[in-house]
């Protein structure tokens, strides 16, 4: 009986964390969308390029409208849907880094890797530390693959330092987010305990 109660409370707590936290996901995704739209339309030169760039973005915009509307209607997305959406964020940002090449800047020189930071931060503020580390590792691996496979690659002429700084700061962002999440969890528990 006690175990069942503990399990039910745990599940409810997990759902609550996901429900309250999903607004930060939605906010982070709007920033990625605004950034990508802005960068696609600014200096747009060919109709074909704009169409190609907008196709994945349209999907992301529709998905975020759906999630935002559910949030506003107090119908939270479940954790699985949120994880899927987060995975989609990583894929879209990686596609942006792969195919949006301002001034012909590709691979490690592409400047749009910065969009990884808000989505990794949002994930770390909602999910557990283990899941955050897995998610951040996935982001790092995807970005590393883009840097290695796309020209000019990573050479030992300063590129490795550039790549190192980016990965350290991305990992730092995730770890600091998860550290704050744990502090807040302890504060909530303390607030409940003190009141009792």
């Amino acid at each position, binding site marked *: 009986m006690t175990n069942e109660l503990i399990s039910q409370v745990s599940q409810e707590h997990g759902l609550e964390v996901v429900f309250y936290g999903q607004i930060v996901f939605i906010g982070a995704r709007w920033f990625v969308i605004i950034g990508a739209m802005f960068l696609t339309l600014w200096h747009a030169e060919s109709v074909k390029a704009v169409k190609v760039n907008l196709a994945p973005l349209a999907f992301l915009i529709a998905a975020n409208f759906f999630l935002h509307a559910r949030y506003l209607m107090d119908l939270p997305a479940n954790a699985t849907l949120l994880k899927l959406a987060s995975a989609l964020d990583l894929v879209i940002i990686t596609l942006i880094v792969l195919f949006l090449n301002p001034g012909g800047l590709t691979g490690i020189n592409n400047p749009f890797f910065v969009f990884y930071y808000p989505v990794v931060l949002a994930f770390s503020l909602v999910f557990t530390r283990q899941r955050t580390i897995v998610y951040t590792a996935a982001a790092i691996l995807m970005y590393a693959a883009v840097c290695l496979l796309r020209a000019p690659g990573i050479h030992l002429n300063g590129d490795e330092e550039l790549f190192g700084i980016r990965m350290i*700061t991305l990992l730092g962002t995730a770890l600091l987010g998860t550290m704050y999440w744990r502090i807040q969890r302890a504060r909530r528990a303390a607030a409940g305990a003190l009141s009792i």
Partner: protein
Amino acid sequence: MSKPYGTRKPQRLLIPPEEERCPESSSGISDDLRYGQIVIVAARWMLVLSAFVLLLYRSDKINELVFGVVGLLGIAVANFWLHTKILRKQCVEPEWVYLASGADIAVISLMTWLQGGIWGRVFPYYYPAVLCYALVFQSGITMFFTGTVVAAYAVLAAMSSPPMQAGDDQVLMARLLAIAGVAFVAGRYRLVEEGRRARIQNAQHALHQAIEERETLTT
């Protein structure tokens, strides 16, 4: 599969109430600042350690090396002082925390400027620095700090050496948008947590009232 949330071991409180030497009522320091400043201190240690390693690993200009080492040493000493204050459960005045965060931004900006503005390699350090103060400071202060960071980086980019080329404005906009995005996400989460704690306290208060009313009725 990881353990469900409720069955994890209880978190150690950063500042247990009985050991609190400066309760909020007497010092006027917000709870967010008191509990969150350890995140800022941790971020600063990360910045100091990684910047020091990278500085020694690849520094070809003597000015950059000297300014870098002196700047990092200054930050490390200040951070040590803040960290010991937290470990000894003493209060740090909010002004010092604001000043330290401002100094972080100033050092990152100085390094960016020394490395040629928009061509600087250290600009990603802005992201953890921004996220930390946005998680801890009040919304108005966060907006002021973020506005300052965005303006400072835009000015540094405009002063780049060699100057920015056509198309680099896109690069600049992407970086500034990501800074604003990180600040927004962190600031919004702080408000979400504030609301959740308020709801818990309200619910507990209502429960206490209901119990008291019931006890009064039965007696």
